[in-house]
């Protein structure tokens, strides 16, 4: 995570592994880094997107505290939490109705 936060741009697994191994006496295998990054992507800590023939990874959260916040809200689910708004993709119809309401009650 430190390497990805430091770089500030999406990185492929090979670049992350190279950056990690630059300061290690016993280098980490490419597959080890790939496995860890895939798991982090599955837990939504990293976002994976296609770049050419491979994938690049971007951190979803800005720091460890934010990862903790997301983890807790995620784990909490909707058990005992009242959220202002669920994250939901607005369909164009609903978007237009909300715009109309804004205009009408301006």
């Amino acid at each position, binding site marked *: 995570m430190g390497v990805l936060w430091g770089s500030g741009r999406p990185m492929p697994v090979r670049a992350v592994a190279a950056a990690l191994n630059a300061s290690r006496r016993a280098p980490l295998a490419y597959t080890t880094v790939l496995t860890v990054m895939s798991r982090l992507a599955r*837990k*939504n800590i990293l*976002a994976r997107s296609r770049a050419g023939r491979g994938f690049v990874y971007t951190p*979803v*959260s*800005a*720091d460890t*505290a*934010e990862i*903790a*916040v*997301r*983890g*807790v*809200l*995620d*784990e*909490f*689910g*909707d*058990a*005992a*939490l*009242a*959220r*202002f*708004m*669920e*994250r*939901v*993709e*607005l*369909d164009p119809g*609903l*978007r237009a*109705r*909300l*715009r109309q*309401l*804004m*205009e*009408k*009650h*301006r």
Partner: protein
Amino acid sequence: MNRLLRRAAGAACWPLLAVAAGAHGALAVLAVAEYATLGWLFGTRFDLAAVTLVLASALAGLAASGALAAQAAGGSRKLRRLVESGRRPLPPPVRDVVAGLGLTGRTDAIHASEAFAVTYGLARPRILVSDSLAAALDPSELAAVLAHERCHLRHRDPLRLLAARLLAAYGCYLPAARWLAGRVALRRELAADRAAAARAGRGVLAGTLLKLAALPACPAIAAANPAGEAAASLEARVAQLENGNPPRQRLARGRILASAGCLTLLAAAGACCVGLSQALPGGVL
């Protein structure tokens, strides 16, 4: 008249369900006693099936509601600890709105790149906002969000929602149970929206919903909430903003019939359990 009847049915529904769950639990204890005393020597296979059904349904309900209670308790504790360690001073625009709404001392801010506002805590609910929310919204929109959350806080909605979901989890095999818990959540959202619209205006609330929906979503949070339910909830909230009245929520006829069928089967099995108790030493009932 119809409206009054519906309201009375709505008010009586939850106490009745709680009593039914309690009675079911008592029958399950009786079923355990019958198993322990009669072993496999039940009179007929029908008796054995009835006692097993009562016991299995109670165990399934207990397991589901126990898992939910553990999740809620664990999440609540972690969130409280997280807020204690990561609490930040309220951003100035939030502080002003919070003071205007009488929420000083009951609102916390933490750092997160996603704009969110939640009400949490069962005994002493509090409001949590992310600093990104303050950055994304103007003061009138912040007032709409915080007035919405104040309604949740005043009515202890986290506790109400948990109670409804625990009861629904106990009856997880009934198709109507999940619908009922969803209905409670939606009604509370609609009530909070009415409070927000009264404070900030319908237009501002509509603009706030539009603005927040356009911000990048947090995939982890999105995954925790079934997309269909969230979309249906937003649809109902927009309909209420348009008409001023909450839309009616209907339960599909198929679900009503399936739930009624399950309940009849359980009632018959329960009656059989009570009948069998005559065979227990001393006759329990």
